[in-house]
């Protein structure tokens, strides 16, 4: 039997990061394939390649035995019956469910189009999520996030001219309640009989193991395991996602329990308090997008609620969206957080600004001949250093870090780790959201987030990859709080 989809030797680089490092994957018709891996393992890039939204640097894409590598794009994918439900919603919020269905089906037009679109989406919604209670004539923007997700999923299964052959579901159950999630998985299994294949990405390992025929595990841009689901257990999966040898608590023996608390407030979800002591480096772990950034922003915007007395600084992770001022020089990007302190007679002291920038260029090793060069002349890693310098150059003693090492090369990382430790020893406190397991060894303590709550608090000697992964991936049997 020819595979429905055959991917060979896919490679994709983003600056220093190898998102895909020679990935082979085949999906058979009617198969449910579970795809798991920790943050940055390459899952998203892989499905984006398959959906036609990311062009790989190298590799081969075949659909039903036809080589489509050249010029493979969204239209090619949809014409071959490949549908993708992305985590960010690709619905138009100002349109209704029926209207959004019309957008993706060119053939729904002319007289009576609305009734047909409505009938199509309602029939699919009824089939996938019986008793969903969604009115097809309400604007998507007015629906709850869970119902939006239902519409998006159901829309992927609607058929007009081309039959659906493969549906990629990226964390489909993340905003569905347990009933809807079960309905979806049951529907996916029912459609297997029609030959519809599904690729399922989920942080709920129980879900993967019960729904999938086969599980592919990715790590560091590679496929590290490809096995029948029946041969795997949850613990084995967790083991496959992490690195083999890992010594716990490389940061051993540094923590000072007697130090004063600089942050102290109720953690998200209310199960654990969120505390930070002077000189501590505390990690916020868990899968990406499970409420860590929101927690940092809550502290930044309402420091009083966390009994913060000292000044706070924020190191953004999404450099383009939250961090860099693209029109400014490196110098001004470093100094912006300190402008108020750099005044002389009410005016910015240009000499002081330059001096500050130059000091930090040297301290943190920003690779540029001149700090007056534009910020965009720097590589991503060096831009990130600028954002660190901005926070550390300021008077703030509490530093909030929002997954700042995204897409940063190894060399830069180790320089920054050393700097963080050095600053912590000098009395600064760090709250560090990171999506990379390796970085947690640099933390004194770790809070693990799942579904917008702190679900585990790991003391120094408990910080292991396995413990973090166990807490990040929920077993379905576990009671929902």
């Amino acid at each position, binding site marked *: 039997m020819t595979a429905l989809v055959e991917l060979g030797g896919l490679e994709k680089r983003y600056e220093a990061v190898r998102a895909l490092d020679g990935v082979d994957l085949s999906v058979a018709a009617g198969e449910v394939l579970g795809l798991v891996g920790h943050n940055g393992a390459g899952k998203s890039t892989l499905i984006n390649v398959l959906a036609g939204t990311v062009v790989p640097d190298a590799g081969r894409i075949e659909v039903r035995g036809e080589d489509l590598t050249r010029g493979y794009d969204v239209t090619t994918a949809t014409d071959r019956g490949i549908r993708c439900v992305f985590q960010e919603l690709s619905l138009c919020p100002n349109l209704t469910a029926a209207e959004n269905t019309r957008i993706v089906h060119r053939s729904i037009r002319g007289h009576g189009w609305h009734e047909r679109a409505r009938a199509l989406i309602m029939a699919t919604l009824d089939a996938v999520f019986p008793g969903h209670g969604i009115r097809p004539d309400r604007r998507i923007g007015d629906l709850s996030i869970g119902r939006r997700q239902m519409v998006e999923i159901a829309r992927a299964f609607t058929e007009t001219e081309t039959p659906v052959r493969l549906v990629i579901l990226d964390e489909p159950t993340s905003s569905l309640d347990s009933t809807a999630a079960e309905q979806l998985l049951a529907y996916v299994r029912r459609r297997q009989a029609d030959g519809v294949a599904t690729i399922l990405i989920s942080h709920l390992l129980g879900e993967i193991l019960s729904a999938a025929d086969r599980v592919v595990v990715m790590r560091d841009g590679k496929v590290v395991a490809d096995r029948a689901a029946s041969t795997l257990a949850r613990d084995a999966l967790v083991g496959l996602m992490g690195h083999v040898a890992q010594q716990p608590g490389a940061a051993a023996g540094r923590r000072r329990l007697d130090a004063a608390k600089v942050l102290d407030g109720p953690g998200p979800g209310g199960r654990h308090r969120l505390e930070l002591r002077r000189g501590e480096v505390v990690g916020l772990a868990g899968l990406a997008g499970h409420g860590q950034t929101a927690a940092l922003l809550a502290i930044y915007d309402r420091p009083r609620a966390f009994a913060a007395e000292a000044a706070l600084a924020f190191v953004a992770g999404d450099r383009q*969206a939250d961090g860099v*001022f693209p029109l400014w020089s490196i110098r001004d990007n470093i100094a912006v957080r300190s402008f108020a302190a750099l005044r002389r007679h009410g005016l*910015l002291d240009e000499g002081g600004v330059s001096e500050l920038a130059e000091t930090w260029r040297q301290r943190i090793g920003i690779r540029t001949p001149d700090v007056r060069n534009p910020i965009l002349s720097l590589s991503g890693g060096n831009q990130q250093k600028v954002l660190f310098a901005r926070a550390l150059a300021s008077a703030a003693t509490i530093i909030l870090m929002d997954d700042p090492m995204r897409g940063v090369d190894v060399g830069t990382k180790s320089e920054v780790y050393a700097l963080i430790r050095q600053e912590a020893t000098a009395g600064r406190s760090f709250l560090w959201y990171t999506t990379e397991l390796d970085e947690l060894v640099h933390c004194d303590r770790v809070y693990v987030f799942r579904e917008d709550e702190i679900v585990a608090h790991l003391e120094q000697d408990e910080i292991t990859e396995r413990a973090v992964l166990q807490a990040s991936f929920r077993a379905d049997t576990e009671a929902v709080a």
Partner: protein
Amino acid sequence: MAAWLARTGVRDWLFAYVGAVTVWLVTVVIADGFGAMQTLTAGLGFAVFYVLVATGQMFVIATGPGNIDLSIPATVTLGAGVAMSVMAGSDAMIVPGFLAAIATGIAVGSFNYALIRALRIPPIIATLSSSFVVQSTAIWYGRGLSIKPPDALQDFTFARVLDVPVMTLVAVLFTMAMAVVLRRTVYGRSVLAIGQNPKAAHLAGVDVERTRWVTYTLSAALAGFTGALFAGFSGGVSLDMGAQFLLASIAVVVIGGTSVAGGRANLPGLWGAALFLFLLVTMLNAAGVGSGVRQLLTGVLIIAVITAAGGEQRGR
């Protein structure tokens, strides 16, 4: 050379000056050299009003996409009316008159900001709504207000030193000061930071709300002040005296090289653009072309400038 132009920001405003000088030279050639200085003097005088309102508009536009003050014309008219009635033709009341015009502007600006904040509407809509109310107030207040400006004020607006209007010299000093505010104060840097990325600015410790309030207040205060000065120059209040400043204030800012995408602004460009627009009128008049062609060319010029600058992120 190109790198130097880019780094110093001279490139942003050079175009406006090249345009102004070219147009002036053409005018001089058309007129066989007659009245070359008079043209320039007149231009420098008229430019003052455009530059003053455009300075406020520029700070507003620099705070990013969607930020435009549409209430400027109404505030100009209201400021003129208030100033003239406070001055009541008396030289002694000139300063209180200007202060009253500025205070009017501060009130309008604060109202604009309150609408933006309380109703969570785009600044354009907020300033549009308030402009209706302010304009109505100005018409009601200004109707029948046939007060002549104080003699000393009128004299001042026409005074010259070596063919350069005194008013222009003062305004140049003012814009130089505002250039320092833009580049060298925390407020000015905050405006530019917000214009590039409001979220990043907030996370970098910039007080976004306070900066917005100051910006809208500054714009309206300058509009009020300009109204008072313009009334002195033109011999009194007229009900539609502000109308020309709506499109002109935006045009001067854009031609002067300020980015409507936000975060990039400069003051020298305002003078270049204001002179350019005024001298263009003079040139076309000298060439015997009517006001229709003049407006047409102004429009084409604006579109050409923005297309040449193009490719930036969508400024909404």
